[in-house]
């Protein structure tokens, strides 16, 4: 029984990591006031680039760096269109997703059916030998460790540094921030690219750790779940982490229930994670004060600096 619980928890962690990475990146972009609906597109471009990078170099780590770079570069297109040319963020984000899905299919055409190079787990010396906790937390792939450090880092950055405060104030009121001399567009460019890099790494996790292969549309909607998780976590990194793991736990729990032969319709079990998300969103929005306090006030609004 202990073995089963432990094994299930490990499966949950692998399933939650790409969601966590992409959601944390998007959180930073949204905190700066930019709504980028292109997470799915950036993720899938990251997945294909990471896969090809790993094939080309023979190292999954080089592959992951390729994925990060590709996500960041791809998001730059979004940033240029919405920030410099002031295009509509929702429309641009959606087209970024569509473009990403098409582009990745084209780039990865020759790699379908090729086994990937897997990123293996790295045990952390000393800590990995602690019973139960060692297996649970310290025998993972590097991307898992990065995802946890990322949450801690982003939390610290947003709420405990001056730069983080600037980023949040730009997201809440870009006019005042601009008047105070803050570089609104530069910060937003960087925030969007950070989001792209995180989505790219999430894609790399898919094609190098989760399922080491490349197939068209392999993200299968995970980018959209990541977007929902940002709202679910009310724009706070630690809550996003809880949300991602909860989502993973409900998905894997539903599979376990099926395999145990629990007599609940599988269609219902499959929709459980989404139902849970909706329920939590409803509960959160009940508390208007809390929602207003955490929602970036300028989210999705264009900003044209007056000279």
């Amino acid at each position, binding site marked *: 029984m202990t073995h089963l619980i432990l094994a299930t928890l490990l499966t949950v962690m692998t399933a939650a990591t790409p969601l966590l990475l992409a959601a944390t990146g998007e959180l930073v972009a949204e905190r700066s006031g930019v709504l980028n609906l292109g997470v799915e597109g950036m993720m899938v471009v990251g997945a294909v680039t990471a896969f090809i990078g790993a094939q080309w170099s023979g190292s999954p780590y080089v592959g992951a760096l390729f994925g990060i770079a590709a996500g960041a570069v791809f998001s730059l297109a979004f940033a240029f269109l919405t920030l410099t040319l002031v295009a509509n963020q929702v429309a641009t984000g959606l087209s970024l997703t569509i473009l990403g899905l098409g582009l990745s299919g084209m780039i990865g055409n020759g790699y379908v059916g090729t086994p990937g190079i897997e990123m293996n787990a790295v045990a952390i010396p000393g800590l990995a030998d602690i019973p139960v906790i060692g297996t649970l937390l310290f025998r993972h792939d590097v991307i898992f460790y990065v995802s946890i450090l990322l949450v801690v880092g982003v939390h610290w950055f947003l709420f405990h540094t001056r730069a983080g405060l600037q980023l949040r104030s730009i997201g809440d009121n870009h006019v005042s921030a601009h008047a105070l001399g803050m570089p609104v567009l530069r910060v937003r460019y960087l925030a969007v690219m950070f989001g792209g890099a995180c989505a790219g790494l999430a894609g790399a996790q898919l094609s190098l750790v989760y399922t080491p292969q490349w197939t068209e549309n392999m993200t299968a909607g*995970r980018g959209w779940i990541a977007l929902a998780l940002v709202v679910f976590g009310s724009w706070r990194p630690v809550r996003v982490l809880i949300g991602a793991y909860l989502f993973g736990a409900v*998905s894997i729990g539903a599979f376990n229930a099926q*395999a145990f032969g629990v007599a609940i319709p599988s269609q219902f079990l499959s929709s459980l994670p989404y139902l849970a998300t909706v329920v939590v969103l409803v509960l959160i929005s009940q508390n208007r004060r809390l929602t207003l306090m955490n929602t970036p006030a300028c989210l999705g609004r264009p900003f044209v600096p007056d000279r």
Partner: protein
Amino acid sequence: MKKLLFALTAALGVALAAQASAADKVKACFVYVGAHNDGGYSEAHEKGRLYLQKELGDKVETQYVENVAEGPDSARVLTQLAQSGCNIIFATSFGYMDSVIKVAKQFPNVKFEHATGFKIAPNVTTYNARFYEGRYILGRIAAKMSKVHEVGYVASFPIPEVVMGINSFMLGAQSIDPNFKIKIIWVNSWFDPGKEADAAKTLFDQGVDIIAQHTDSPAPLQIAEKRGKLGFGQSSDMIKFAPHAQLTSILDNWGPYYVERVKALLDGTWKSQQSWEGLKQKVLLMAPYTNMPADVKQMAEATQKKIEDGFNPFTGPIDRQDGSVWLKKGEVAKDSTLLGMNFYIKGVDSQLPK
């Protein structure tokens, strides 16, 4: 304007008819739902097209259109192909069904062949493969190879094709080990590597040592390989993804069927029919039997031979899950029952999602 259009269409029809009756050369066109090199379903049809071209040489001209979405857009593509002089059009995905019937009415001189559908017309034929024959062999192998007497099954949607596969698999397994068990996880997707991998992990976590799948990605096999367990491929040979885990795989092989139908058109013997062929006609093949002892391999080959010689896995006595009699001793299931199958046979413990 309408008259002019009518005259044009009529002229085109006459021209096509003239071309068809000459029949010393045929243009065969293919419509794929995915890319021609998708590594799975559409690629299997593409291989069939290449085989057709090679076998019939200059008697046939072939053309394909790929990535054609199911639904209304397929009607546009089909119309275009019919107008451009295709004599026979192979529409290779289930969701083209209504478009095929609609367009076929407008082009009575063009022959249409629709894969996996069930609507026919004087110039529309359906064709499918008896994949359940292969699954019977998988079941027998699993019963021999599993040390825990249980298989994990990653399933897509509870439609007759998949339910039929599970039942056939279990009939095979029960013929070796009457108490063989199955754990089923429905992922409600044909293709989601992540979910398929999660399902496979969950099944292994719960203690099975072999998995079978009725979803399309090699992800479950990759998990089997990583965990040092066993599994079966799907649609294509996935041995590259799991050199130590894949026992065999059911392969689609449409080439011989395409040759047969185009030949019939050349000879003027083409007739509307509902074709559902299997191992015997080599519409499906088994990948090499690997990672198993010699006696199991022999058993698998013997089973395959037996099916090729005419044995139907759905031969009674077979009881339904609730214990009621479905087929009496020696009775063989009707194709129509199989194609609408919505119940488990005895020995499958879980409940069929409705």
